[in-house]
Structure formats: C-alpha cells, structure tokens
C-alpha cells in the first residue's frame, strides 16, 4: 500500500526534494500543490529573465511531462490555507480537502516589506516570482525612472535587470554597505563603484519612510526629509520565511519552521525543507542549502534515516552582467586570531579578501574577479590547512598542466554546488552515458543548470575525461594579446578600461601591433558606445585623417551622398572643388558615390569645408553607404519606396564604426537593381512587404544574403536592419565581414538573437545603438577642430640647411 505524500510548494526546494525521493524505492503517491500557475522553474534565473538574457520558458526546470512520467498529481494555482495535523488533511483555497500520510512543507518565503507608507499604491512591485518579473517587464521601458529599495543581492539584480531594460535606476539602501551580509565596507564600495559605472545610481544610508504619489507611485521619501522621483518602485528588502502552515500544524516555529539534522519537525509525519525552515538557528535564503537539505530529507522520509544535514556554508554569488561578486563564510576580521589577506586594484575594480583563522580559511570576498571562487569554496568546505600555502593564497602559481586543476580535484568534490553534483558523478556519467558535450552533461546530471558558475569546471572535466570532447577552437587576437576576441569582449565589458593602451598594459604585452591596436580601438569604441578615450596612434592612418591612403601617399575623398541621391547644386560644388584643388581623378564609384582621388593630406580640411558635405566613411571599417534604386518615385516597376528607405537607413547608421566595412542596399522590387541581395544588409521591397536580408557579398567572395525576416512596413524593415547592425557590431570579430559572421553564427542563431530575441534583448541592442549614435559625429568636422595641431599640417623645419 503506497503512502500519500503531500508537498506544499512547487518551488525549487520542494521539487528538488521530490526528485531525491524518486531516487529511493517507490513508497509514495505524491501530490504537489503550487500557488503559482507555472510549472517548477529556476528562481535564481529570474534576474536573467528580467535582464532579457533568458525567456520565461527557458528557466523551467521540470515540464508537465516530468510530473506525468513520475505519476505526480500537480495542483497548480491552489494555495493550501489550512492543515489539520490530527486528521492529517490539508485544505486548499479552492475548498479541496486532501488527506496525507506524510506532509512536506516547502512554502519558501515572501518578500519582506519594511514599514513605510504607500506600499499599496499602483506601481509598487516586489521581485520574487515569475509573475512579479513579468509585471516588472511590462512596466519597464527606456527612460522610466525606477527606484529599487534594498541594496542586497536581490535588489541589485533587479536594478541591473531594469537598467538593461533602459530604465533610469536608483538603488536605495538602508545601510552604509551594499550587500552588507556578504561584503565588508571596502568590498561594498567596490561594488557600488561598479554599479555606478554601469549607470545605476546608488543612495546609501537612506531610510525609506513613504512611497509618494496620488494613488500611483511617483517618488520615494526618506527619513532625512529628502526624496527621489520614480515612475515605479521595487521593494527588495529581504525575505521572510512562510511559516503559517507550520504554526497551524502546531509545529515548533521560531523565525522559520524548526527542523533537526534529519530535517524532521516536531511532528514525526510532517517535514519541511528550503527557505521556510530554520536549522540550528539559521534560515537560509540561497539555493545551495535546498539541495543539501533535499537529499537528507529524502533519506529520512523514505525510511532511510541516517544522513544528516550539518548546515551549509553561506555562499553567495552575484553574477550580473558586468559585475562579479562572490562571498562565502565569515568575513569578519574581529574574531580573535583572525588574519585578513587582501588584494585590491581600484583601476580594475578588483577587490579580494580572505579571512584566515587557525590556519584555515574562514571567509572570502571577491569583487570584480571571481575566477578563484571554486578554490576558496573548496578550502572552506574541506577546512584545508593553508599554512604551507600562505604565500599563494591570492596568487596561485601558474599551472604548467592546464588539466591539473581538475586532475587534482578529489572525486568527492562538489563541482555543481546548486545541484550537489560531484566530480565523481560527472566522470561516471561521461563513461556510462557516453557524454561528450556540456548540453548532454546538463541533461544527464543537471550539473551547471543552476547558477551556471561551474560551467568552466564542467568544460574542463569533459575535456579531460570525454574521449570525443571537442572544444571550439579559438584563435587569439594576436601575439600581443593572448585572448580570443570574444573572451576579450567579455572581460572588457566588466572592466573600466577605456583606452587601447590600458587594455594592452593589463591584458597584452603593453606594446601592441598593427593587428591588435585597430581591433582594440574598435572594441573599446563599441563597448563604451563611443564614450571612450580614443587613441589615434592605435588607429590606421585612414582613421587618423579620415581619408583613404593611396599608393602614392595621397588620399581620396568621398563625401556622403545618402542613397546615392544628389543634386545639381551639390554636383557643382564637387566639380568646383575638383578644379580648385586640381584633383587628378574624379570617379563614380561602384557604390553610387563620387571619389576625388589624389588629394594631399594638407588640403583635406579645406576640401571638406568647401564640399560642405559629411564624410562618406569610404576609408574606414564603418558604415559605408546604402545603394538604392529609384523605387517608386520614377520606376514603373518599383513597388516600395526603396530610395526613401535607403536614405533613412543610411541616416540612422552613418558615422558609426563596424568590425569591418559595411555596405548596404535597398531595392524597390525583386529585380534587385541596386544588388541588395549581395550586400551586408539589404532591404528588398516586394508587393505589400519588405524582406530584410543579411550577410551578402560581392567582393573577394560572392554570397547571396540570407533572409533575416519579412515584415510589412518600411519602419519594421528599418528596425530589423538596425537590430542586426548592432548585433553584428557587438558580436563579430574585428575584420570579420557579415558574410563570414552570419556563416559562423548560423542564420537561425542570428534570427533568434535579433528579430526573435526577447523584447528586452532587442531593447538592449537598440539602446546601445542609440547611445553610440548619439555620441557619434561626422569625422570631417575635425577639419575645423583638429585633434592635434599637426594632424593635417606638413611640418616645416625651423631652420634651413645651408646648401
């Protein structure tokens, strides 16, 4: 006879525990109640959903088929309101009465709302579940003012997510240190600087007394009398264990439902797990304890009482784009016999502190560089004697053997702290299931499906153990900078390095060469959306003087003629310039532009001034032109206004730099007179719609562009084109044309990450493009205001040599 197990709570803790129970011999008929209407999902990744990095359905942990497969009755949208410990029944808010033999309470926690006025107003949110996240996403929009109350882990994740959505975000924190439960004052200051660097405002030591506004949140008032404006407010000031059911069941309850080392409550038939419990005086609000507790509880409840839960070392990892923070154990220096070992570099924003007591690691704080977190966590868990390693605590000697780290790891060492997967378990899976990719490993062992911080270790393990494992071959940028470009972009995104020379000094050989300097110039310009310290010496001559160097050392001048549409007046000016400066050759280019060839450098500023036209960027890795056909204006076949579309596209993107030159085309019918299908980006007008095509080429290589999307209106076509444009800017390697880029990525991936990406991702791309565009300017304006006095000037010696 199967016993009835009722689980209240369909969150990570309850379901993780059920997963463990299923590993034991079948004993229960299981019913799970969840008051949310979604299947079980990964709550840790809600911040990734808010930041648009993941779609809501990407964070599901167990689909309905999983419940079905294991014969679990899932009751979604039902909140259990009563429990009768004597009769052994639970009552739902739908009036249902469900009997149980064993009851598992996994009700988690709810947001703590500090006492303040006005929390019921419209536009006041919490950030706890998927519905909260969706509501925030609905509300967030570029330019909206968001105030996040709470500078802890959750508050900062919410702040960053909203900021990525384009909101103008202010974090308000009661204490003088951000994440004060995880960081000391210095670490908090580094974190604060990083957040501010990302564009999030931070107000410290502010006690919020009221949410202002007439029915709807309009601002937040503080105890000191000051206030800030807000379009909406997020309260993320902490959590409170949900213990009401425990109380109703007559269990012993302090802050949480009290459990012993076997996860038993004071009632032998009722168990509790997760954030709602209190073990040894501690309530946990993080994910790792859930899994450890779940395992122990599964043993106890299935009659295999034996394993004990000894508490979890509190470890927290803040992993939001651009800010890495890790904290574990006790970082206080006050306990007698404690030494603090520190490292800090304000320019890089890196702060590390270890506390060592009795020769063992007691706590660790890492800000800006968390790459060693696994090593420290291991020392904490194993209580390794560090005496012999005192000189290498913060700087391990370089490993000669890249595989040594994983080879040295004991089989019992936990690799994935979220799911409690050991090295041994991974190796076993590799051998028994023939696993060779990370995706297979995730499916099989669940390793690296939680916070994802162990991904690198998993990769290394696969590399070491799996016979078929093939790592993506990545080429370093050059001999001066020994990083592949994608890795470098990732590193630089989290740093505050705004110039090529800084990057070279920290990540390169300090010197650089003609390969990496222009590549890094582009990278810092792109990453900082134009707001960087441009170093002209790192750029090719064309970009120093905004003209194309020719074989004889003269330059060519190509003014911008948007869409190839000019006027008699403009042509006359060009002709006058050609005569005045005795330009040796005037040529119509293949791009519907006019090229003045053979111009002396010293004449450039005056020629630009006389032309009175912006730079056509024909000399740079940047937005070249949009070639157009006559579209509907005069053509008897044209069905779309391709000329207007082309001019508008050019206007929206001109003056920007790209990984390689970028040529575009716009045609008004499928006859394709402006060859849009062999351009980097093409707009192809058809009856009633536009095709946006990308990755075409008619140069060194001839390639027909791939269809990105078909849309109805010109505006939608322009939007899709500019989305791809920014995606290419952010993800292509330097000197990689779109046709190589699209082939490398695959058009399906490109579509998924641009036109079919979650709205937030699209908005992020657009916002960064907007910012770059706002800062960009016509390079030829430098003719009037040179960057350097001798930029265009031929130096004459101060004295003549006597003949």
């Amino acid at each position, binding site marked *: 006879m199967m016993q009835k197990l009722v689980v209240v709570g369909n969150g990570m803790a309850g379901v993780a525990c059920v997963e463990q129970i299923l590993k034991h011999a079948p004993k229960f008929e299981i019913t799970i109640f969840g008051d949310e209407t979604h299947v079980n999902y990964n709550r840790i990744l809600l911040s990734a959903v808010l930041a648009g990095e993941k779609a809501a359905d990407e964070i599901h942990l167990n689909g309905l088929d999983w419940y079905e497969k294991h014969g679990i009755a899932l009751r979604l949208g039902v909140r259990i309101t009563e429990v009768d410990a004597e009769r052994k029944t639970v009552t739902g808010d739908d009036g249902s009465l469900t009997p149980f033999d064993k009851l598992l309470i996994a009700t988690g926690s709810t947001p703590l709302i500090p006492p303040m006025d006005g929390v019921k107003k419209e536009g006041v949110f919490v950030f706890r579940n998927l519905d909260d996240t969706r509501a925030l996403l609905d509300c967030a929009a570029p330019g909206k003012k968001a105030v996040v109350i709470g500078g802890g882990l959750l508050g900062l994740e919410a702040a960053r997510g909203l900021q990525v959505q384009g909101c103008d975000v202010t974090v308000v924190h009661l204490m003088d240190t951000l994440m004060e439960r995880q960081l000391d004052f210095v670490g908090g200051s580094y974190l604060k600087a990083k957040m501010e660097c990302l564009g999030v405002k931070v107000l410290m030591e502010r006690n919020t007394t009221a949410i202002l506004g007439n029915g709807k949140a309009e601002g937040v008032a503080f105890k000191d009398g000051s206030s800030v404006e807000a379009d909406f407010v997020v309260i993320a000031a902490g959590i409170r264990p949900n213990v009401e059911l425990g109380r109703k069941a007559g269990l012993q309850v302090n802050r949480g439902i009290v459990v012993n080392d076997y996860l038993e409550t004071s009632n032998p038939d009722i168990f509790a797990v997760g954030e709602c419990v209190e073990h040894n005086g501690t309530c946990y609000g993080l994910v790792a304890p859930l899994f450890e507790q779940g395992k122990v509880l599964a043993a106890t409840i299935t009659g295999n009482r034996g394993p004990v839960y000894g508490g979890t070392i509190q470890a927290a990892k803040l992993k939001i784009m651009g800010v890495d923070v890790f904290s574990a154990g006790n970082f206080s220096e006050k306990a007698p016999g404690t030494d603090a070992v520190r490292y800090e570099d304000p320019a890089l924003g890196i702060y590390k502190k270890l506390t060592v007591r009795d020769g063992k690691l007691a706590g660790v704080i890492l800000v800006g560089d968390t790459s060693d977190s696994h090593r420290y966590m291991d020392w904490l868990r194993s209580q390794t004697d560090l005496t012999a390693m005192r000189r290498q605590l913060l700087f391990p000697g370089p490993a000669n053997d890249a595989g040594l780290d994983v080879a040295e790891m004991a089989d019992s060492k936990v690799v994935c702290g979220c799911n409690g997967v050991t090295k041994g378990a991974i190796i076993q899976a590799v051998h028994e299931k023939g696993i060779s990719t990370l995706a297979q490993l995730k499916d099989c062992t669940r390793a690296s499906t939680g916070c994802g911080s162990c991904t690198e270790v998993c990769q290394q393990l696969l590399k070491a153990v799996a016979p078929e494992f093939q790592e993506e071959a990545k080429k370093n940028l050059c001999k001066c900078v020994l990083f592949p470009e994608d890795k470098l972009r990732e590193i630089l995104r989290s740093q505050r390095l705004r110039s090529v020379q800084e990057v070279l000094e920290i990540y390169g050989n300090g010197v650089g*060469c003609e390969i990496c300097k222009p590549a890094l110039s582009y990278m810092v310009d792109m990453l900082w959306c134009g707001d960087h310290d441009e170093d002209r010496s*790192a750029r090719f001559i064309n970009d120093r003087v905004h003209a194309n160097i020719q074989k004889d050392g003269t330059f060519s001048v190509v003014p911008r003629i948007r869409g190839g549409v000019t006027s008699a007046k403009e042509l006359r000016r060009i002709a006058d310039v050609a005569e005045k400066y005795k330009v040796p050759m005037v040529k119509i280019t293949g791009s519907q532009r006019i090229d003045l060839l053979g111009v002396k450098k010293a004449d450039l500023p005056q020629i630009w001034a006389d032309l009175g036209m912006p730079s056509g960027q024909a000399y740079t890795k940047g937005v070249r032109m949009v070639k157009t056909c006559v579209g509907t204006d005069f053509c008897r076949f044209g069905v779309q206004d391709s000329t207007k579309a082309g001019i508008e596209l050019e206007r929206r993107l001109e003056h920007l730099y790209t990984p390689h030159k970028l040529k575009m085309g716009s045609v008004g019918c499928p006859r394709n007179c402006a060859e849009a299908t062999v351009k980097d980006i093409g707009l192809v007008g058809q009856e009633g719609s536009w095709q946006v095509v990308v990755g075409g080429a008619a140069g060194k290589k001839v390639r027909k562009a791939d269809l990105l999307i078909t849309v109805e209106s010109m505006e939608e076509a322009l939007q899709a084109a500019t989305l791809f444009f920014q995606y290419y800017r952010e993800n292509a390697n330097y000197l990689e044309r779109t046709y190589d880029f699209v082939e490398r990525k695959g058009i399906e991936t490109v579509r998924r990450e641009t036109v079919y990406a979650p709205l937030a991702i699209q908005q992020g791309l657009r916002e960064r493009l907007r910012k770059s565009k706002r800062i960009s300017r016509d390079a030829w304006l430098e003719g009037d205001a040179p960057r350097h006095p001798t930029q265009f000037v031929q130096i*004459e010696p101060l004295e003549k040599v006597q003949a």
Partner: protein
Amino acid sequence: MSNKQWVRITPVQNIPLREGRSVNISGRDIAIFNLGDRLFAVDGRCPHKGGPLAEGIVTGNTVVCPLHAWKIDLETGSVTRPEAEPACVAAYRTRIESGIVLVEVPEPSAKDQDNPHFCGGQNPASGHFPASNTAP
C-alpha cells in the same frame, strides 16, 4: 668622410605620442617618431613601394608601413618584415634641446656620396627605392 650637422626641426609636442610626422630636410623626406621616452628618425619612404612611413602604426620600436605592412626597425632602419628582406632605410640620430627636436643629417654636399646608414655594406635598396633614387 661625411660631414654631418644637427638641424632644428620642430617643437616636440608637434609629434604626438606613438605617432610619426614627416618633414622635408633639404630634399630628404624624413619620418620622425615620438615614442615617449625617445624620438626616432628614419627615411620617410618604405623600401618596398615608397609608402609613407610617418603614417604607419608604431609598434614598440618598429613602424608598420601603411601600404603593405612592411615593418621597419626605427633604431637601425632595417626591414624586419618580410624577415628575409635585406633592405633598409637610413636612420638618423635625434635629440631634444629646449623642447625642440633636432635631427642629425649629412650636409647637402655629402648627400650623393654618403648614405648615413648601410645594410651590412650592400646597396640596401636596389630595386626597392622609388625610381628617382635608383635610376642610373
């Protein structure tokens, strides 16, 4: 033997850090580079196809010609890329005096007989200098 003289060229700030500028000293096209702690001067034309070296990207003590990426050592004037290439350009001594860059050049009378720098004694640039320098 050669008579050389120091010629006052321009205030040092006219040559930006890690960049070059060309200057014509009595018919010689010379490229001067500012490497922060020191200045270098070499003939301004690449021995390959006469590319303007002053417009090249500086990498360490070498400059990369903007036309076809030949690499020239600024200290010795020798070509370091292509590696097997024996060609070189003349290198000139430089110094700074009260903020003014000075370059030491052969006197004009010595110009035709005296090359200030030899590539191991051979004619460095045969077939590489622009026609005007190699024409019989």
